[in-house]
């Protein structure tokens, strides 16, 4: 027996397999979950500080409460807009065949290719009434709240449409047809039969949109800085995450801000988790009185002009509110004035971002895949069910709060052992890990375990059966998860700023450029980032397509 055979023999043994699973679970709990919620323990240990600097300071409390309330208001408004504007488009994608469907499909995903920092800048110069508006921009909006709502709609919209399309595609159309042969008008049939069936999709879509909006930092900071034409200060319009970014930055000089930071983060994390549960229960349990039927007005609305108006306005919304603001930045550059800029700092930042994103993706894959396999293959075990719920936590928690919690955790463990770049990587792993796990769990659950079992009885060791049988079948999903994790890390601002105030990644670099009003440079940097992300998105689409065929 050769040494490679011996190695294979060893890692195929029951003992090693158990140990490997245990290792991955421990990694997940101690490197992802624990740091993410570690800050909750500060509520106990640092309560006196919080009491002294926050609770008994009305000015600070006001800031915190208004920022958190604003965050939740924005997230709620955004989710509702996404649903109303996204449903007709999801419907078209799931149920209709028309020319340009493929094109529409690509169009919907496009905002995902744009890192939020670039998106914030692009949308802000399109909408906002800035001191020096670029040509063709609307420059109409001076309300920060409205601007942020519009911005958040742009990047959460694709999530809603995708979730709704997926679930609509899975609902058998024959129910509706049956309803219509029984005399219901199209609208009545849809409203009373199909819509109640897709609550699950609505839950997913709503949670994704809500969490994404609640979490967003980079784009928000940039949009506000663009609107104000300067770096944000404490008295400006603030959301929870921007407040964390601002205070984290200031806390380097003024450590008395730490309790306030802690308090905001705790508030955001707890409220986000509570909201997750409430939203789920509310959508699944609340009985909307849908049974009542109004035959004649519904019949009227099912025919003629109305459906056309609905579809047209949904598409127009997609183009004007989602697509144009995402890519408006390109027109800015065409008409802007080139300046002799020093590109080296940006290239440094870009390299840092790439290194971080690559390492993050590698860690996600190495530990996320075994975790996903464990969850998917042990559906009946209590531990697996618990882990399945836990995996979603970093997805819901606002990344700025997550980053701050994580930084605090590792500083408590050993401040010297963790250089900033490692902290950034760990924080990015925390919120990208669920993307890989969710994708792989979904794929593995769709595959009959009989394939691997048969391979085992044919003499394949567990590792061999995974590599030769299962892996080729789930390759597409692994890639999808990996590319999502990669682009998400590449575009992340909030967690990076919250974990290390003076980090040097590309999105943070762009934030700083906008703060200094170096708009041309910022726009160029955004475009480069967009192009890189877009290339990855194209790869993603190609690989996921292949799997379907």
């Amino acid at each position, binding site marked *: 027996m050769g040494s490679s055979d011996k190695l294979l023999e060893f890692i*195929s043994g*029951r003992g090693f397999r158990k140990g490997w699973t245990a290792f991955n679970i421990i990694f997940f709990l101690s490197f992802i979950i624990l740091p993410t919620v570690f800050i909750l323990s500060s509520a106990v240990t640092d309560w006196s500080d919080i009491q002294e600097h926050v609770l008994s300071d009305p000015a600070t409390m006001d800031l915190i409460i208004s920022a958190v309330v604003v965050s939740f208001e924005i997230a709620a408004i955004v989710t509702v807009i996404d649903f109303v504007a996204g449903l007709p488009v999801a419907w078209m994608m799931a149920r209709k065949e028309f020319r340009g469907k493929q094109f529409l499909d690509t169009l919907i995903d496009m905002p995902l290719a744009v890192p939020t920092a670039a998106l914030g800048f692009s949308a802000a110069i399109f909408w906002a009434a800035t001191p020096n508006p670029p040509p063709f921009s609307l420059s109409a909006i001076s309300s920060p709240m409205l601007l942020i709502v519009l911005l958040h709609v742009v990047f959460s919209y694709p999530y809603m449409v995708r979730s709704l399309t997926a679930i609509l595609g899975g609902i058998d159309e024959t129910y509706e047809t049956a309803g219509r042969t029984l005399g219901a008008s199209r609208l009545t049939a849809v409203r009373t039969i199909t819509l109640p069936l897709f609550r699950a999709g609505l839950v997913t879509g709503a949670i994704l949109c809500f969490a994404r909006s609640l979490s967003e930092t980079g784009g928000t900071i940039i949009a506000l800085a663009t609107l104000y034409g300067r770096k944000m200060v404490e008295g400006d319009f603030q959301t929870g995450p921007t407040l964390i970014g601002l205070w984290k930055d200031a806390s380097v000089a003024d450590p008395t801000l730490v309790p306030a930071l802690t308090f905001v983060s705790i508030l955001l994390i707890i409220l986000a988790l509570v909201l997750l549960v409430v939203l789920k229960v509310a959508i699944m349990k609340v009985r909307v009185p849908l049974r009542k039927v109004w035959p004649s007005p519904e019949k009227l609305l099912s025919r003629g002009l109305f459906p056309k108006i609905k579809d047209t306005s949904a598409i127009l919304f997609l183009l004007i509110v989602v697509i144009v603001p995402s890519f408006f930045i390109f027109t800015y550059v065409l008409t802007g004035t080139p300046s002799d800029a020093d590109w080296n700092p940006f290239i440094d930042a870009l390299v840092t971002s790439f290194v971080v994103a690559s390492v993050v993706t590698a860690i996600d894959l190495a530990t996320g895949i075994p975790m996903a396999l464990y969850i998917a293959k042990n559906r*009946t075990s209590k531990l697996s069910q618990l882990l399945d719920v836990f995996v979603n936590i970093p997805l819901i928690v606002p990344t700025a709060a997550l980053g701050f919690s994580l930084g605090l955790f590792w500083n408590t463990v050993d401040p010297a052992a963790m250089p900033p770049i490692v902290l950034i990587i760990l924080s990015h792993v925390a919120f990208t890990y669920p993307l890989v796990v969710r994708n792989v769990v979904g794929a593995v659950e769709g595959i*009959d375990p*009989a*394939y691997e*079992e*048969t*391979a*085992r*009885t*044919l*003499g*394949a*060791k567990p590792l*061999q059966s995974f590599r*030769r*049988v299962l892996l*080729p*079948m789930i390759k597409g999903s692994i890639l999808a998860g990996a590319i999502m994790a990669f682009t998400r890390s590449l575009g992340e601002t909030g967690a990076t700023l919250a974990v290390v105030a003076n980090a040097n990644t590309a999105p943070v670099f762009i934030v700083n450029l906008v703060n200094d009003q170096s708009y041309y440079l910022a726009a160029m940097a955004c475009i480069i980032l967009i192009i890189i992300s877009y290339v990855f998105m194209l790869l993603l689409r190609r690989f996921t397509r292949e799997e379907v065929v």
Partner: protein
Amino acid sequence: MTLSGIVKRFSDVTAADGLDLTVNDREYLCLLGPTGAGKTTALRVIAGLTVPDEGKVLFDGREVTHLEPEKRNAVLLSQTYSLFPTMTVAENIMFGPDIRKVPEKDKEQMLFSLLDLVRLTSRADSYPRELSGGMQQRCALARAIATSPDVLLLDEPLRALDARLRIDLRRDLKSLARTLGLTVVHVTHDQDEALVMADRIAIIRAGRIVQVGTPAEVFDEPVSPFVANFVGQSNFFTGTVVHSGPEGSVVEDEAGNRVKARPTDVAVGEKAVLAVKVGHTHLLKLDAAALKGKIERMLFEGRVVHVDVDVAGAGRFSAKIPASYRGRYQVGDDVGIGWNRNKAKVFPYPEGGLENELKVD
């Protein structure tokens, strides 16, 4: 290969409840039972995919209960074949030899002869999804044989095929197994399939083996009313044994109907159930028959006609008559029912009642 005292409980069902079974070398054994009887669990325990809660699995006297599936050389062919969709026919077949690092030259030769054996030479580079159901089945079989397994485990291998093909492949599969001298455990719920293919049949019910024997033995000498009914449908007559002797026995029901059967161990005066195969039940002239009834229903089945006769007080009896006799009877006719006394067997009345005994799920 021996299973002894296998017990396997899942959260709310007991899939194996003290299961004992021995499979001889080069034997074709059919594990026959109704859905949910624990057939697949038994197969998975042999393959090593399910570890039993209690009991032992022995291969050639060596205990393998906790041995990993890949070390058993017991190959499973699942209901859906599980051909690896990302590999071609040739790659699928050579999966086992590849894993075992068989030298290239031997592999090539093996592949040729296997492709030839299952008549797939021209489809070697196709992907499984491009094959018909029968081809997929043969490809899966070739893949299983390629590892020269000590025992081949077939989990309802013919289930996914249409009826005509299924009957053709029974013969193919059986002759292939005989030619190659394979030891086969074939799980099925189809009694015809088991009767045609098996050297021996093991009847499984509720996680226990109730009878093992040649097809003729389980058909002619069932050990319980359940087996009598499950392997070739039976008619039942419930009553009390009124006579028992070396020439045969007599059972009488409450309505006073008296029917004859072969000798029995059930004592005179005991409650008993007489079972006779539908195929051994005949329609007779009224005056020659011990049982009389009215024709309730006639179903034309092609070569034969299935006739249900309602006998007052004794329940329904079924018989098959040749299709050519069709014109002689009509629904509503009064007819006699009878059988050769040597074809009727008497069992003690089952503890849980007859209906419970015959239940298949």
